[in-house]
């Protein structure tokens, strides 16, 4: 049945293609495929790359007052792995987090004894440290609506993009530390890993110019990409994080930051 369904859908689309009226600018209906690359104009944030890429399919109609078009596509803004600044972690219990290079010289012998008696891996005992490694990316399907006023082969364009702003954060961490509480020395070792997604239909306005020829067109636009950044927060010294999220009762909700980041994008389009 599933095969039949796909067969029918595909055959229908192929048949619908028979009614596609493709052609040059002078026709009422136009369509095209676009590939796009953009560069961020502001300083890099959220450990995302400053560039993004995307592709889309456009269809529209030409009227006397201008051209209206809709575009559906996919955009992608990658990011590289980064190490989270451990000093920024909320630390209500005043744990001393063991950073690279801190161990063992600055750790009291009493604490070292506790660590050695605990069931930690041999390697970890001799190289005790903390790391919180993360990777962010922004991608997703989008839809654009645009209005263009053509002047000969150049046109002025404005529009809005909805979507293309699914933020994803991967994190995997292993932090340890100690503190003196009264007469006792205490240690902790939290491990946690997980994925956070923030999917939303954000609205990103854009505007710019397009330069057209019979078969191709080039668009240069400014776009303010809207998205919500999600940043997982872990409170050190809470119960060791379990696999699959590391969430405990002590973990606050993830931080969320709304962003509006201007980009300049270059689009190459091919008329269909």
């Amino acid at each position: 049945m599933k095969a039949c369904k796909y067969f029918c859908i595909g055959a229908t689309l192929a048949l619908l293609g028979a009614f596609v009226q493709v052609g040059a600018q002078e026709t009422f209906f136009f369509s095209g495929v676009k590939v796009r690359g953009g560069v961020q104009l502001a300083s890099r944030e959220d450990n995302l790359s400053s560039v993004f890429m995307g592709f889309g399919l456009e269809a529209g109609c030409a009227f006397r007052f201008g051209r209206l078009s809709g575009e559906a596509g996919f955009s992608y803004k990658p990011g590289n792995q980064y190490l989270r600044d451990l000093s920024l972690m909320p630390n209500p219990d005043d744990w001393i987090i063991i950073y690279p290079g801190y161990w063992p010289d600055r750790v009291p012998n009493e604490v070292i004894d506790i660590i050695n008696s605990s069931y930690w891996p041999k390697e970890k005992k001799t190289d005790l440290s903390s790391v919180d490694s993360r990777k962010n990316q922004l991608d997703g399907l989008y839809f654009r609506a645009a209005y263009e006023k053509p002047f000969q082969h150049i046109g002025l364009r404005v529009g809005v993009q909805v979507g293309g702003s699914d933020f994803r954060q991967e994190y995997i961490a292993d932090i340890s530390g100690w503190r003196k509480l009264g007469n006792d020395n205490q240690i902790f070792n939290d491990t946690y890993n997980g994925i956070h997604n923030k999917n939303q239909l954000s609205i990103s306005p854009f505007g710019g110019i397009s330069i057209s020829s019979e078969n191709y067109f080039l668009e240069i636009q400014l776009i303010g990409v809207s998205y919500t950044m999600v940043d997982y927060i872990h409170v050190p010294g809470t119960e060791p994080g379990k696999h699959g999220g590391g969430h405990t009762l002590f973990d606050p909700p993830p931080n969320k930051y709304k962003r509006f980041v201007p980009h300049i994008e270059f689009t190459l389009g091919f008329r269909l």
Partner: protein
Amino acid sequence: MLNMIKRFGTARITALGLLLAAQPVVMAQVTTGQVSGIVTDAFGRPLRAIIVLTAPQLMGQRVIMTDARGEWRALLLPPGAYTIKIQADGYIGATIRNFRVGVGQSLRQNNILRAVTVSSATVEITGHDVATFDKTDTKTSVNYSHERLIQLGGDLNFWSAASMTPGVVMSGGNPVIRGGQVNSVNFRLDGADIKDPHQGTVDAVWYVGDSIEDIQVVLSPLNARYGRTLGGSINMARKSGGNEFGGSVRANIDRDSWRGRARDIREDEGREGGNVSDAFSRTWDVTLSGPVWKDHVWFMFGTSITPARVENSTLIAQNERYRRTILTGDTRIDNLLAVDSDFNVTPGVIQQIPKLSGYCIPFWDALQSYDSTQNNKFYEGKVTVALNENHRISFGGSRQEWEFDRSGSNSYLRLAQSGPDSYMAQGWNIGYDGVLGEKTFVETRVYRNRQWNKWGRGDIKADPTYTPVELWLSDNEMDGPPNPPNPPNPPTPEPSLNYVGRFAGLGGGSLNERNSLNASVNLTMFRDFWHLSHNIDVGVDYYMSDVRDGSRHGQNNRIVSIGGIYEEKDKDGDWLFPTILWRAPGLFGQSENGNNGLAPVMWQYYGVDGFVKNTDAAIYINDQITINSRWNIMLGLRFDQIKSENTDGSAIFSTNNFSPRFVLTYDVLGESSRVFKFSYNRMQSDYPQSFTNNFADTLVRKYVKLVWTGLPGQPIPGEGFDGGMFGLRFVTLPELIDINNYGRAQEYYDSSVQYIRDLNLKPMYNDEFALEYRRTYSSGKYIRLAYVYRKEGNIWGGSHDYLPDNWVPILDPSNGKYPLDNDAHQMLGQTHVYFNTDELWRDYHGVELESAGRINSIFSWNFSYSYSRLRGNSEAGDSYSSFGNFAPPGYFMLKSYFERPDINVSMDQRSPGGALINDYPHKVRASLLAVVPVAKSGWISYAAIFNYDAGANWTPTYPASLELLRKEYNALRLEALAFNKPLPPSPPSTWTKFYSQRGAYHANDTYSLNLRIAWEIPVWNRVKAMGDLSIYNVFNKIQEYSYNTEFVPNSVGLDSLYLLGERFGRSRNAEGLEAYATLPRQIYVSAGIKF
């Protein structure tokens, strides 16, 4: 668009075929291409015209007349550049030069001829000046000419072509085509399948780069002629030769110091291979071709000469544990085992033995350098015979010999390496192409390939006798992690056996052989009936592969485990091995399973070589129907009888399978400039050798485990003085491997009763649905947009459930020769059941965007972008290892155990769905190429190629303990021992636990810019200087992998994930290096001449 050229006489139109990545068309050819077209006047009326094709690779010329509709077609064209002349009475003719036809390619060349006007002083030619793709193509593919690869691709091989193709990702250096399994791509050279039937990849050298004419990467084989794949295929055609002598000599040069460096790559750690000589690496590629008899017999010859390369490497830092002997716990014996190196031991003689050092192999010469030598030779040849202009026969063959010798100057290699490893691959093929009539064509192919590996000393041409013995050395590392008070103790690992190698044998080494045979006949007919035009392919295709699966274990099919060896030979030139009589597991230092210790253990395997023959016999019919100028439909059906057989002909698997094919094409304007195509295609795989070998009923899958019963008079260890030896004896190799010194069978093994399969287990298939749109502009530029969906079916599941119902007795494979020892117990075996299941899934979604065009006469560009997702809950035999991964998927591993209420491990932890290992969502390739003409026939090209690839994904997993199950097993085992019952099979000690959705984490994306300069410059007469300079990753942009992780139980019993890696302030990972996703900058140069 009309191209107006004003000229007297015949217009000369330069084709832009170099830029076109034509869609494969109707004809399903793998060694030749075709051109078709229609000739009309300016009013669209068909013309009676004569088409003449000439080319160096075409014996004579091909003369064709158009039919009543003005159509013509030329099939079975050897790949290369053609000149096409079109003449019609009363009309100005057209000549198209440098019209390139690629392998398997089908092109369309339509022409509009103008009538001659007597009064005009000028004549005008109108017509299309570029070839368009043939919309009736029955595959989706991309072609790369020799020249294009030289200018853009780098290497003249499959992988360069695949790397540039949208819809193809590279996994471990091997192509994954539209989500198909990495070992399911077919590789064909002149129609011959050259894939290693066991590995599933191409590992041998089968061609010289300069002998390659064209490469085609087939993304979707729609024509029913194609089968045996879950992905696609890559076809390559050699040059055929011609009426003029030609040839080339090219030196490919590489040097280690030309490479950039990544952070933390250490070269002087004492790792094996860490120091590599900075010598020039040179390979000479030589080709020669020409006529034996003009217009009738041509030859082509090629060879690749690699001067013997000597590399200096350094052995790894020695782990101290490998310098200790296996200890028995009896201090009297143990004191005898530490002796001085200068002492000469006389075997069998009771004597006082001073201290020896460096007792264990193979790591005596730590941090010492050694030399290794590689020799590589390759030859190929092809003879093409034209019976007449319509019938050709070709004969081809190739042979590669590779030898790697590490028996250099140090004791490790001298001891463990009894000679060079060698590898050979050879194949021959015969093909016949015939034009039986104006509308009937036939192609036949037969080929046979053999590949074999050989390890250990011996002449690779000698008949293998398998004389060396396979030795395994006991691991001295008896330590395990400390026992914590909480949580429960993790299982104490058994000491391992370390493979020594095939030791000091005479004669040949062990052999591993892979063979394949293919024969096919294809008939192509063009017929008109039912008011429709039909292009019909009908034929048969037979494929056979057999693999002798390295089942031999050294001399006489034996493996021996030893406790140690002296680093020097005795005065008689014999290696010496210490032995004690085997008492029982756990006594005198023998391990709990009895396999490790000073008492040797022998596994005697039974039977003939592992040998499985897989066949695929197919018959098919395919009809490409032209309804009118806008509509085409293709219907195809393929029937495959797929079998796997044992040596004696008994069936392992046998199934019959039908694969339907369907394509609907709509040409919007009827001129091939705007074409929609919808296709459905079932791709049927066969049974991979790496899978069926597990079910071979050959006796090598059975063994008896025997223990050392000693030399005559050798006493029980520790009992009596024995002249101060206390039962210790030093024996020579012949004594060690003499089965008469063994007995007291401890264990039987028989995998043939343990691997249960459904005789009707069906091979996997892929159902593909694709919707594609192609827009071709009059200038030759094009854009292709495609959406592809593939769903895999008949996925194999393997059940591995530890249940009494699944246990079977293991019978004596020696047929009574070695009855079980009184202290041993009969064992029950665990069965593994393989079946088709719908509970496992694997889907692929892909969007491909591809475009190419020419800016002017010098500059051109290519661009492609692929977005794809390969998801599922099973790798379905796909993995980085070429052997495939058909181990029971997590879902079926101990399924009933995990579903117990007291265990309750969810499927998400055992085998969750998500991104599979070959899921690389983004791939971008963009290139700018400038080809500057030099003199009359030369050129210099400059290319900039940008690559962008998504990072690999990974899943944190951990071998979690099966503590409860092991306890249950121990209880059953004790009960069996108490009541003298057969022992239950031992369950696994760990299972793979997932700590996230599959493929949830990703390594960094990678990108690089490559620059390439290539040239062919006339020097004298027909002689040209040729060469290229390639700089990969010009800016040395290196992306790191993420991190290494380790899961261990933490202080409260939960599994915690620890991150390893020096930049995290921790110890290095096991390999001691950070991992990098991109290679540092590399420079390659080639230079030579051609004529």
